[in-house]
C-alpha cells in the first residue's frame, strides 16, 4: 500500500526537477560565455580563453569565416572561438535580446543602421580606440575610420569591408535599348532615357522601385547639402525640396520610367522581382555588397556612378563601412577579442580566406592583392571604386533611425499610389517627422 503511494510522489518530483532543470537550462544561456571565460589554466602559459563570435550572411561567408577561425585557433591554441552564424532575418532582434539579457557574443558585426542605437545611445560596445595596443589600426585608412566608423569620438567597430551605392545595370537591357554604358547619369537623363525605353517597349522599365535610402534621402540631400535629419533633431530640408522629390517620383511613374508600384511593391528586393529577372527592368541603385546576389539572377552586370546633378551640394553617394565588427562591453576578454578582430581584418592570410565575403577589404594592401589575384569579383571592386570617387557625407545616426525612415517610406508609398499629391506629401512628412523628433528621448 505504502509502496504504491511512493510512485506518484516520485514521478511528480522527477517532473518537477525536469521543469526546474529546464528553467535553469534557460539561464544557462549565459554559461558558454561565463564558463569559457573563467577557464584559466596554469600561470606560465597564456590564459585559456573562449570567445563567442556571431555573424550573419550567406553560406560562402559562413565557410570563409569558419576557415579563418580554424586558422587563428591553430596558431593561438589558448583561444577557443565559438561561431554562431545565421541568415540576416531576425539577427538584429536576436542580438538586441542578447544584449538586454547580458548574453551578447564577444564579437559581432553591426549593420550601420544599428550603430546609433547600440553603440551611441545604449553604449553597449567597446570603443576600439581604447584597445589600440591590440589592434593594428595603422593598417586602416585613418580618414576612412574617422569618417565612417567613429561615432561620438568612439570607434564603434572595425569595418570588415567598404560598401558603396552605385547604379547597377543589366548590360543586355542597355544593349537592347541602345543605352551607352558610359552614360553619366543625373535625374534628368534618367527621365529622358527611361521614357524613351518605355515608349519603345511598354513592358520595359528603366527602373524598378525606389525607397527612402536609394532615392528620397540622397535626392533631397543633393539639393540641401545637409544630413537628412540633423544632429540637433531637426530636419535638414525645407518642404520645397521634398515636394520636388515627390513630384519627380510621380513623374517617373506616370511616364513609365519605373515599374508601377502595385507590381513592384510585392518585392522587398528588386533582385527578386520577376520583371528584373526576365530582363524587363534595366537598372537599380544598390550597394556593392548586394551585387553577388543580383549576379545569380542577372549575370551580365555593369556599374556606374549614382545620379549626381551638376549643381548638387553633395554627391550624397552612400558609402558605408560594411558591417563594422564590434566587441561587446560585456566581453570578459576584450583584449583577446581585439587581437582576433585585428588579425581577421588586417592580416594577409585572413584576407586570402575571406576574399570578398564582406565586399572589398578596407585595408588597402589586402584589397590590392585580392584584386591582383582575381579573388574579388571585378564588378564589386569596380563598384566600390566608383562610389569612393565621389562619396557623400557619412550618414549620421538619426538619418539612419529606422522609425523615422519608416515614416518617410510610408509617405513615399502613398505618393506612388497617388494617395497624396507631392505638396500634401511634403507637408505631411514634415509634420510627422517634426512630431516624432520632438518626442524622441
Amino acid at each position, binding site marked *: 500500500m505504502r509502496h504504491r503511494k511512493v510512485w506518484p510522489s516520485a514521478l*511528480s518530483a522527477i517532473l518537477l526537477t525536469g521543469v526546474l532543470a529546464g528553467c535553469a537550462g534557460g539561464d544557462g544561456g549565459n554559461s558558454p560565455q561565463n564558463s569559457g571565460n573563467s577557464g584559466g589554466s596554469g600561470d606560465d602559459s597564456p590564459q585559456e580563453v573562449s570567445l563567442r563570435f556571431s555573424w550573419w550572411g550567406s553560406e560562402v561567408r559562413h565557410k570563409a569565416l569558419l576557415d579563418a577561425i580554424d586558422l587563428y585557433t591553430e596558431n593561438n591554441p589558448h583561444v577557443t572561438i565559438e561561431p554562431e552564424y545565421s541568415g540576416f532575418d531576425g539577427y538584429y532582434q536576436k542580438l538586441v535580446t542578447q544584449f538586454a539579457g547580458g548574453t551578447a557574443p564577444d564579437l559581432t558585426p553591426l549593420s550601420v543602421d544599428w550603430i546609433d542605437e547600440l553603440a551611441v545611445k545604449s553604449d553597449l560596445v567597446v570603443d576600439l580606440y581604447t584597445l589600440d595596443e591590440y589592434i593594428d589600426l595603422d593598417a586602416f585608412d585613418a580618414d576612412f575610420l574617422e569618417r565612417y566608423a567613429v561615432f561620438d569620438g568612439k570607434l564603434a567597430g572595425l569595418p570588415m569591408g567598404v560598401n558603396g551605392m552605385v547604379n547597377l545595370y543589366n548590360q543586355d537591357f542597355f544593349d537592347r535599348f541602345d543605352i551607352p554604358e558610359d552614360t553619366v547619369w543625373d535625374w534628368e537623363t534618367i527621365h529622358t532615357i527611361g521614357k524613351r525605353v518605355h515608349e519603345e517597349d511598354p513592358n520595359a522599365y528603366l527602373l524598378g522601385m525606389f525607397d527612402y535610402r536609394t532615392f528620397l534621402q540622397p535626392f533631397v540631400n543633393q539639393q540641401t547639402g545637409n544630413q537628412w535629419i540633423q544632429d540637433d533633431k531637426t530636419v535638414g530640408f525645407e518642404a520645397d525640396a521634398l515636394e520636388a522629390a515627390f513630384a519627380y517620383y510621380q513623374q517617373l511613374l506616370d511616364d513609365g520610367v519605373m515599374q508601377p508600384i502595385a507590381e513592384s511593391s510585392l518585392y522587398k528586393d528588386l533582385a527578386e522581382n520577376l520583371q528584373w529577372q526576365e530582363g524587363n527592368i534595366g537598372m537599380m541603385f544598390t550597394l556593392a555588397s548586394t551585387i553577388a546576389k543580383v549576379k545569380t539572377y542577372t549575370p551580365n552586370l555593369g556599374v556606374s556612378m549614382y545620379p549626381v546633378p551638376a549643381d548638387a551640394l553633395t554627391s550624397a553617394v552612400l558609402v558605408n563601412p560594411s558591417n563594422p565588427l564590434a566587441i561587446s562591453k560585456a566581453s570578459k576578454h576584450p583584449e583577446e577579442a581585439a587581437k582576433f578582430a585585428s588579425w581577421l581584418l588586417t592580416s594577409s592570410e585572413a584576407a586570402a580566406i575571406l576574399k570578398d565575403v564582406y565586399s572589398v577589404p578596407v585595408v588597402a594592401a589586402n584589397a590590392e592583392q585580392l584584386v591582383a589575384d582575381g579573388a574579388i569579383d571585378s564588378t564589386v571592386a569596380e563598384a566600390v571604386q566608383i562610389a569612393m570617387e565621389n562619396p557623400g557625407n557619412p550618414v549620421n545616426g538619426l538619418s539612419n533611425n529606422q522609425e523615422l525612415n519608416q515614416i518617410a517610406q510610408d509617405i513615399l508609398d502613398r505618393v506612388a499610389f497617388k494617395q497624396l499629391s507631392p505638396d500634401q506629401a511634403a507637408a505631411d512628412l514634415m509634420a510627422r517627422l517634426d512630431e516624432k523628433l520632438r518626442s524622441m528621448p
Partner: protein
Amino acid sequence: MRKQPATGAPEAPTLQAPRKRRAKGERIGLLYISPWIIGFIVLTLVPFIASLVYSFTDYSMVREQRFIGLANYIEMFTKDPVFYQSLRVTLLYVLFAVPAKLVVALLVAMLLNRQMRGMGIYRTIYYLPSILGGSVAVSVLWRFLFMREGLVNELLSYLSIPPLNWLGDPELALFTIALLPVWEFGSSMVLFLAGLKQVPKELYEASTVDGAGKVRAFFSITLPMLTPIVLFNLIMQMINAFQQFTSAFVITDGGPMKATYLYGLMLYDNAFQFFRMGYASAQSWVLFIIILVFTFVLFKTSNRWTHYEDGGDSR
C-alpha cells in the same frame, strides 16, 4: 455520521486521519500539476504583469527605462496615425475573415455529415489545411499563388478574366490575406460536425411531415441547434483573427501602403524593429481590452440568439 472520503483508507481510526490524508492527497495533486503551475507563472503570469508595468515606461531593452505614466497611451490615441490605420485594417480583417470562415466551415461540415463511402478520408483531407496552420510555409505558398504571375491568375485567364493584382492592389490585398484563414476552416468544421451529429433526427422527420423543405429545415432546425457551437467558434476565431500576424508579415509585410498592416504586425514592428517595448506593451494591452470588449458583447448578446436544449441552465 461523517461521510467517508473517497480517497480515505477503510481502517481510518480517528477523525484527524482523513483530513491529513486529504491534505496529503492535495499535496500530491499539486505536485502533479506543478509543472503547469510553474510554467503558467513564469511564462504567462509574470510576462502578463510585466507588460502592464512596461506599458507605463519607455522600456527599449537596451537603454535605461523611465516611468512615463500614460504617455504611451496618449501618444497612441492622439499622435499615431499608424495605430488607427492598423486598427481599421484589423477590424475589417476580423469582420470578413471570421464570418467567412464560419460559413465555409459550416457548409463543409454539412457536406461531410452525409452517409457515404470514404467519408473518413474526405474529412481528413478537409482538415489538412488546418494542420498546416498559420505556418510560414503556407503563407509563402499563398504569396506565390496570388502573385500577378501566380496560379490563381493563371486559372482566371482560362475563364477569360483579366489578371488581378491580388497582393499589390491596396483594395484587394487585405481580402487576399483574409482568405488564408478561411481556407484553414478545419477546427471550426470539426466542431460543427460534432454539433450536427447531436441534432435529433426526429426534428427533421417532424419537419418533413409538416412539409418543410431543406432550406426551411436548415434555418429552423439545424442553425438554431448549432448556435452554441456558432458562439464558441465565433469567439475563438475572433480572438485568433485579432492576433493574426504570420500571413501579413510573410505575404505582404503590411503593404501595399499599409493596407494589410494588421495589429499584430504593428506590435511586432514597435517591439522588435523599433525596440519601443513600452509602447508595444501599451498597444498589446489596448488589443487585449478590445478583444475583451468584443467577447463580452458577444456573450451578453448571445442569449438572444443561442438556443440550448436545456434552456441554457447548464451554462
